[in-house]
């Protein structure tokens, strides 16, 4: 049971150790991989669909749309930028028009950077049109209205949704569907996943989202990090199993196991 007493605003030892352990295995994965250790990633179907979907837009000669949802500058949009960078390079290579409507001004500046760099890296800096990176609105539904309008008017062939989405997820995805676009979506906003699953063609679930850049680029740092993440999740899983066993022992043999030591150690 939870007491109503004042709890510390700072980490206890258990939390600190858990943080260091999970961070440690991720960093270990990164350094092993950078040293040249070959690491494996299994197939993630939604992510494989990204390249195919760009191909479709090329065939149809119609634009690609990429949206971050309402994401602002943070860890979530950082990952989305990495995926945008990949998509922008392919778009530059195949001569697709890429439209990126945004809802956050600082992020807008970064997205423009990323696209400009991507076109330059493909040797086509002149093909980059800064007018296609559009700040629409930082108000949720004004942003959604703008994207809906864009999808219909520009006859988008492919739409990508990577970032943080709220209620606008289905508004955008269903409009894209009505406009006839093939759609790929991924977001750590778990409550929006079912709507993307229903309305888009490929959905990236949960932390497949954070696996995205590793999967697409096969950069050793990112692949190593992904393997380290697996070990980190393994640690959390083991803790859950251990905590459950202790909870059972506490019920069966309350004389010996007077409390759930693990729960206490983690400051629950």
């Amino acid at each position, binding site marked *: 049971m939870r007491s109503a007493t004042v709890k510390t605003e700072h980490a206890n030892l258990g939390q*600190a150790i858990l943080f260091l352990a999970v961070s440690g295995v991720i960093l270990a994965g990164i350094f092993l991989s950078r040293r040249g250790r070959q690491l494996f990633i299994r197939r993630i179907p939604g992510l494989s669909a990204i390249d195919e979907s760009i191909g479709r837009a090329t065939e149809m000669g119609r634009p690609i749309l990429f949206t971050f949802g309402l994401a602002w500058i943070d860890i979530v949009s950082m990952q989305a*930028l990495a995926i945008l960078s990949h998509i922008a390079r392919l778009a530059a290579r195949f001569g697709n028009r890429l439209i990126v409507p945004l809802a956050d*001004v600082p992020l807008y500046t970064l997205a423009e950077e990323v696209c400009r760099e991507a076109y330059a890296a493909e040797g086509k800096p002149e093909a980059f049109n800064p007018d296609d990176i559009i700040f629409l609105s930082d108000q949720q539904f004004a942003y959604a209205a703008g994207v809906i309008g864009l999808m219909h008017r520009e006859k988008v062939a492919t739409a990508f949704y990577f970032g943080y989405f709220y209620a606008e997820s289905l*508004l955008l995805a269903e409009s894209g*569907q009505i406009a006839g676009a093939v759609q790929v979506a991924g977001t750590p906003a778990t409550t929006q996943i079912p*709507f993307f699953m229903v309305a888009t063609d490929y959905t990236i679930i949960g932390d497949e989202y954070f696996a995205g850049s590793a999967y697409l680029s096969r950069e050793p740092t990112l692949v190593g990090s992904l393997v380290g993440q697996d070990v980190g999740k393994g640690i959390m899983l083991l803790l859950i199993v251990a905590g459950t066993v202790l909870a059972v022992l506490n019920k069966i043999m309350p004389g010996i196991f007077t409390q759930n030591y693990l729960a206490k150690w983690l400051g629950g």
Partner: protein
Amino acid sequence: MFGPKHGAELWVYIGATAAAFVAVFAVLHWLPVRFKRWLVVVCAFLGGLFYSLEYYLPAKHRWFPGGENPLSPLVIPMGNAVAVVSGFALALGLINLGLVHGRNIARARPGWYNSVAFFVALISMIVFGLWQSYVPDAARAAGLGLSGRQVHRVYDVLFNGLFQPLGATLFSVLAFYIASAAFRAFRIRTAEAAFMMVSAFIVMLGQVPVGQWLTQGLPTSVGNPLHYLRVENAANWLYSTWSMAGVRAVDFGIAVGALAMALRVWLSLERGSFFEVRESKK
């Protein structure tokens, strides 16, 4: 020296600080690219350290100056500072919007009148918003024939007549899209999809009287295990246990994924081109 200042002295301090800031960046600008790269790495490291050190260091320790966590009092000012700094980006968005729509009008592109509507809406919202907030009675004094009340009324039209209903209505379009998506795409081709559908049905029925009417014959007492079959109880149970566990499991994965991303940003291990500093073409 560093305390608050007032009157003319304040403006001297403000001017001097701004000048010093420009001077520092001017000096930095002439440093070699190698150094600028290093500066970016240091900024990332220090920025990432702030909230984490504050939290993972204990509240009190004898090693701290004065025995208290030195970062804790800075948490709130830091939050304010970030909000203010981000706030200064506001004109950037307007510049972009203004350029796009301005060009539409200048080149008389099809639908240019929509861009005019955009400007009218934008400018009147800014003007009347700030006006009703800061100069409630200045209007009459300025001889424009608009009293504070009338300014308020114009703002009311913009906010309660346009902004709010437009947003609420667009939001409610979801009701229709959910129905059309359900009809078009909710296909039961696999066991997975069947699981999703059954669970969705139970929850949808459990929330409304008509669903509860379906299982009204079943016992209501908590002691009887059959009461779990009442659709509202089944829906609640589905929500609070099964669905909760699934969401939680996904979130644990996301936590570790986000942690990894955060580590890579913090230690500048991320490949991304966007933070790299290159030789600038002069």
